[in-house]
C-alpha cells in the first residue's frame, strides 16, 4: 500500500463468471469441471480456491459454485463445459450479472465489518474463506484473498449503490479509488 492510504478499492477485470451446479459427492463431475476450467471446486462450505491469475471457484451452496475466469478464457467455456458435463448438471454464463471489486488495505476489514451483519473478524474470516451475506442492504459474495485484501462480487444492478456505499464507508480510513498514484 502507498503511504497514508488505509483502504483501496478497484474493479477487478474478470473475463467471465459462470454459475455451475452439479453433485458435489460425484468425483467424476468435479474432475471434469476441474480439467476444463483449471480450477478445483471447493467442497468445504464457505471456501474458495484460486488458480493462476484471477481464475477462482467460489462455494455458493452444497451443489453450486461460481467460477470467475481470467480475461479471454471464459468466452466459449460455457459451451465447452456443457459438451463434457452430465446433462443433469447446469452451467450458466452470468458474466453480465456480476461485478467484482478488490478492497485492500489495512482498514479494509473494518469497512466490511461496517457493511454487514457477518463476522468479518480475521479470527473468523481467514484467507480462503468466502461468504454470501447481507451487504449494505444488498447482497454480496465476499472472499478473503489475503489478510488485508478481499474480493467482493455483487450484482451489476447494485454496482452504483454499493460503490458509493464503499466510498462513503471507506472515507474515514483515508481511502483511495485505485486510480490516483
Amino acid at each position: 500500500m502507498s503511504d497514508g492510504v488505509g483502504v483501496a478499492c478497484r474493479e477487478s477485470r474478470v473475463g467471465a463468471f459462470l454459475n455451475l451446479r452439479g453433485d458435489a459427492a460425484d468425483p467424476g463431475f468435479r474432475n471434469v469441471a476441474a480439467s476444463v476450467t483449471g480450477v478445483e471446486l471447493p467442497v468445504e462450505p464457505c471456501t474458495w480456491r484460486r488458480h493462476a491469475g484471477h481464475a477462482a471457484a467460489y462455494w455458493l451452496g452444497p451443489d453450486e459454485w461460481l467460477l470467475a475466469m481470467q480475461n479471454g478464457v471464459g468466452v466459449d467455456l460455457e459451451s465447452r463445459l456443457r459438451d463434457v458435463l452430465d446433462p443433469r448438471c447446469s452451467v450458466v454464463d452470468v458474466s453480465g450479472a456480476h461485478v467484482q471489486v478488490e478492497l485492500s488495505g489495512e482498514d479494509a476489514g473494518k469497512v466490511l465489518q461496517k457493511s454487514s451483519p457477518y463476522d468479518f473478524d480475521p479470527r473468523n474470516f481467514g484467507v480462503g474463506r468466502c461468504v454470501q451475506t447481507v451487504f449494505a442492504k444488498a447482497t454480496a459474495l465476499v472472499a478473503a484473498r489475503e489478510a488485508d485484501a478481499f474480493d467482493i462480487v455483487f450484482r451489476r444492478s447494485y454496482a452504483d449503490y454499493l460503490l458509493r456505499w464503499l466510498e462513503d464507508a471507506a472515507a474515514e480510513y483515508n481511502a483511495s479509488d485505485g486510480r490516483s498514484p
Partner: protein
Amino acid sequence: MLRIRCPYCQEARSEEEFSHAGEAHIPRPANPDASSDAQWGEYLHLRRNPRGPHREMWVHTAGCRRYFNVLRDTVNYEILATYAMGERPADEPEEGAL
C-alpha cells in the same frame, strides 16, 4: 435478532440473511385426484399454530439460498435445532409439547 445455524453453510448467521417459509413436514396427498376437497384444502391451507416447539422451514435467502428445517420454540423464540431437508431427528421434543 435470532442467530440461525444454516446446516449447509455450517455456520450461525444473522436472522437478516434468512426468510421464514412456513410449517415443515407437510406431506402432499399421494394421489391428488383421489383426495377429497376437504383433504386437499387442508393440505393447501390449514396449518398448526402450536404454543411451544414448532417445526418450520426457513430459507437462507442472502446466503446459500437453500431451504432447511428449524425447530423453534414459539414462546421464547429459542432455536432448538436446525437440520437439512429430508432429515427429521427423532430425539427432539414433540411439537407443541408444553
